[in-house]
C-alpha cells in the first residue's frame, strides 16, 4: 500500500477547502452550542440559505455577486430570527427538532421541481463564481513538493476560507471575553440565574443564534464557491452532524476547537477512506472481497465516524482540547 500517497492526500484533505468550510460551520455552532448551549441542528439550513442566495442571485437573476453576498447574510439573519422567535423560549430539545426540521424544509423546497427555474432542482446551479475567480492571484498549481498540492482555484478558495476562519476565530475570542460573552456562557450554565440578575435571556440567545447563523451562511457561500456549483445534497442533515463532530472533536467552547477539530476530522476521514479503498482494490486485496467490496469500503469511514462520535461524547465530551470544567453539557 502506498502509505506516502495516503498520508499526503489525507493531509491535503485536512488542510483543504472542504475542511475549512466545515470549520466555518463549526465556529457558528460553537457560538450556538459551545458558548450559549443552544442545540442548533439546522446549521445545514443556514448554509443552504447563504449558498443559494449568492448563487441564484448571480446565476438566475444575473445580478452582482457582491450584492448577492450581502443578501445572503441578510437572509441567514432573517432565518435565525424566524427560527428563534417560536423556539428560544422553549426547552433545548424543541430548538433541536425545529431547526433540524427547518433545514429539511429548506433543502427539499430548494431542490423541488416546482422551483426548478430559480434553484435548478436536484442539479443545482453553476457558473456564478466568475467575480470571485477573477480575483484569483494564483495562476499555477500551488504545492509543497511531495507533501501537498492544490490547483490554483482550489488554493485561492482555501486561502480565503482559512482567512475567514482566522477572522471569525478572532471575533469569537474578542466576543467571548467581553461582558456580552460572559452573559452567554452563564446562560449556558444556568439560564434562570441569569434571568434573576435582570438579563434578557431571550434577547441574548437570539443574538447568539443570529451571529452563529451568519457564520453558517458564510460557510454556505464558501462551499458553493469552492465547488463552483451548488446542489441540495450539499446541505443534507448529515452536513450538520459532520459539523457537530468537527466541533466536538476539537472541543466545544474553545476558540480554536473547530480549527483543530476540522483538521483532525478530515485527515482521519480521508485516511480511513483511502486505507479501506486501498485495502479492497487490486487483484489480491488485503481484505478479501467476500468480506468487503469497494462500495462497502467507502462506508467504513462513516461507521468509524459514528462510533467515534459516540465514544467521544461518552468518554471525553470536552473534546481533545476542551476544558471539562468549561462545558458540563448537562443542560436540560
Amino acid at each position, binding site marked *: 500500500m502506498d502509505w506516502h500517497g495516503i498520508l499526503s492526500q489525507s493531509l491535503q484533505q485536512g488542510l483543504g477547502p472542504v475542511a475549512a468550510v466545515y470549520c466555518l460551520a463549526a465556529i457558528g455552532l460553537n457560538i450556538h452550542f459551545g458558548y450559549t448551549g443552544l442545540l442548533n441542528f439546522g446549521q445545514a439550513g443556514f448554509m443552504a440559505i447563504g449558498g443559494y442566495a449568492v448563487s441564484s442571485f448571480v446565476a438566475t437573476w444575473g445580478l452582482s455577486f457582491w450584492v448577492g453576498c450581502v443578501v445572503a447574510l441578510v437572509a441567514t439573519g432573517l432565518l435565525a430570527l424566524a427560527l428563534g422567535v417560536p423556539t428560544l423560549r422553549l426547552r433545548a430539545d424543541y430548538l433541536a427538532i425545529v431547526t433540524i426540521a*427547518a433545514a*429539511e424544509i429548506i433543502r427539499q423546497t430548494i431542490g423541488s421541481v416546482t422551483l426548478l427555474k430559480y434553484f435548478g432542482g436536484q442539479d443545482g446551479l453553476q457558473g456564478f463564481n466568475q467575480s470571485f475567480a477573477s480575483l484569483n492571484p494564483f495562476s499555477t498549481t500551488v504545492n509543497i513538493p511531495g507533501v501537498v498540492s492544490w490547483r490554483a482555484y482550489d488554493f485561492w478558495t482555501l486561502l480565503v476560507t482559512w482567512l475567514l476562519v482566522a477572522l471569525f476565530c478572532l471575533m469569537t475570542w474578542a466576543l467571548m471575553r467581553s461582558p456580552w460573552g460572559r452573559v452567554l456562557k452563564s446562560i449556558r450554565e444556568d439560564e434562570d440565574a441569569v434571568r434573576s440578575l435582570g438579563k434578557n435571556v431571550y434577547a441574548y440567545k437570539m443574538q447568539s443564534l443570529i451571529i452563529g447563523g451568519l457564520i453558517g451562511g458564510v460557510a454556505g457561500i464558501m462551499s458553493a464557491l469552492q465547488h463552483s456549483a451548488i446542489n441540495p445534497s450539499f446541505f443534507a442533515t448529515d452536513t450538520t452532524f459532520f459539523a457537530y463532530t468537527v466541533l466536538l472533536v476539537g472541543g466545544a467552547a474553545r476558540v480554536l476547537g473547530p480549527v483543530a477539530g476540522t483538521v483532525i476530522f478530515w485527515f482521519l476521514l480521508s485516511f480511513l477512506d483511502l486505507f479501506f479503498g486501498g485495502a479492497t482494490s487490486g487483484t489480491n486485496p488485503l481484505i478479501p472481497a467476500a468480506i468487503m467490496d469497494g462500495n462497502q469500503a467507502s*462506508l467504513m469511514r462513516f461507521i468509524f465516524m459514528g462510533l*467515534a462520535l459516540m465514544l467521544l461524547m461518552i468518554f471525553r465530551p470536552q473534546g481533545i482540547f476542551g476544558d471539562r470544567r468549561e462545558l458540563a453539557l448537562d443542560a436540560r
Partner: protein
Amino acid sequence: MHARPRTISALLVALVAAVLVMTGAASAYAAPVSHVGESACQKPAPRNDDTIHIQGCLTDLREKPPKPVPDVRFTVVDDQGKKVGEGTSNASGVFDISLGKSIDVLGNTYTVHLDKGSLPKGAALRNPKQVALKVTPKLSSDVYVTFPIGNATAAQSGFAIQALQLAVGGLVFSLLLAMAALGLSMIFGTTGLTNFAHGELITFGALVAYGVDALPGTITIGGTNVTVAVAIVVSAIASAVFGWVNDRALWRPLRHRGTGLVAMMVVSIGLSIFLRNIFQYLAGASTHQYSQFSSPRPWHLGPILVTPKDVFIIVFSTVILVLVVIALQRTKLGKATRAVADNTALAAATGINVDRVVSVVWIVGAMLAGLSGVLLGMTQGFDFQLGFKILLLVFAAVVLGGLGTAWGAIVGALVIGLFVEVSTLIIPAELKFVGALVVLIVVLLIRPQGLLGKAQRVG
C-alpha cells in the same frame, strides 16, 4: 451508582457484535435471491456511439413477476411539436427510440407520448393522465422513462373521491407512523432521551424481515405460504431484542453515569450514523422489495380502491396500538411506566424498579418501531435509510401530540400522516413532507405543549 468506563465499552462492543451478527445473517441469505421482485426488464445492450436514445420498458404490474407488454406505440416530439422519433415495445416490453447525436439533443425538451389505443385490452396506465412524459437530456447518456401499467387509479375522478383515496393511503401511513412515534414517545417519556437513532430501529425491523423473506424456499403451514407472517413475527422479536440490547449496552450505563440529556442526544446521533452505514454495508444502497409478498388485486369499495394489504395493515396496526395503550392504562407495568414518566425519583421511592420499567419500555418501543418498519417496507419497499427518511415525521408526530404522552403520539401521527398524503391534492407530491414539517413549526408557535400535552411551562 457509577458504571465503570470499561463496562460501557465492553457492552458497546457487544452491541456492535449483536448488530453485525443479526443483520449479517440477514444479508448472507439475501445475496442469492436479491433480483427476485425486480421487474423482468432487460435493458438494451449499451451502444458505443454518441447518440442519445429514449428507452423504457413496459410491464404489467398486476402480474407477479411483472409481465412485459408488447406492441405499444410511442411517439417523441420536440418542444415545437415536431415529431422526432417513434417506436414500439417489443416482446419483452422494451422500447428504444433514437433522438440523434447528443450534441443536437442535450438541453432540449422532448415529450414522449404513449398511444393509449395500442395498449392491450384490460390494461390501463396506473395514472391515466400520464400519457405523455417530458424529458430533458442533460448528460450524454440514454434517458429511461417509465409508464406504470396496472389498474387505473382514481386519478381521473372528482376532487372528493381523490381526497378519499388519498386519505386511505394517509391512514395506512399514519398508523405506521403512530407505531414508531408511540415507541419514541414512551422512551422519551421515561428516560428523557431524544433518540435520533429511532429511525434505525425502524430500518432494523424492515431489514430483518427482508432477511427472512430472502431465505431460500418458502415457509408453509398446511399448504399456505406464511413466509410474510413469519417475517413479521421474527422481525418483531428481533427488534425487541435489539431494543433491549440498545438500552442494556448503551443507554442504561450512560444513565447510571449521570450523562446529560444533551450529551445523550449527541450519542444517539453517533449511533444513528453508525447503524445507518452498517445497514448500507449489509443491504447495499438499492431499494428492496419483499419478494414473497405478492400484491393481490385491489377491491373496489364504492368509488375508491383498497388493497387487501391496506386493510391488513390498518387492522393489524390498530390492534397493536390499542393493545399497547390499554396495557399502559390498565396493567401494573403500564401504571409503573406512567409513574416513571411522571416523576422518576418519586417512582423509585415508591419501590418501582425504574431500570426494569425502562428496559420494558425499550423492548416495546423498539418492537413497535420494527413492526412499523416491516409494514412500511411492504407498502413502499425499503432501503438502508427508510427510518432516517421518516424520522423527522416521527418527531413531528410526537411533538405535535405532546412530547411524552401516549395518546398524543398517536393523534399527532394521524394528523401528520393524513396531512402528508391528502395535502398532495393541492401541493406537489415532492413537497408533501415539507408541508408536514411546516405544520409542526406552526403548532409549536401556537401550542408548544402539543395537542394533548399538559399546559405547563416547557422552557
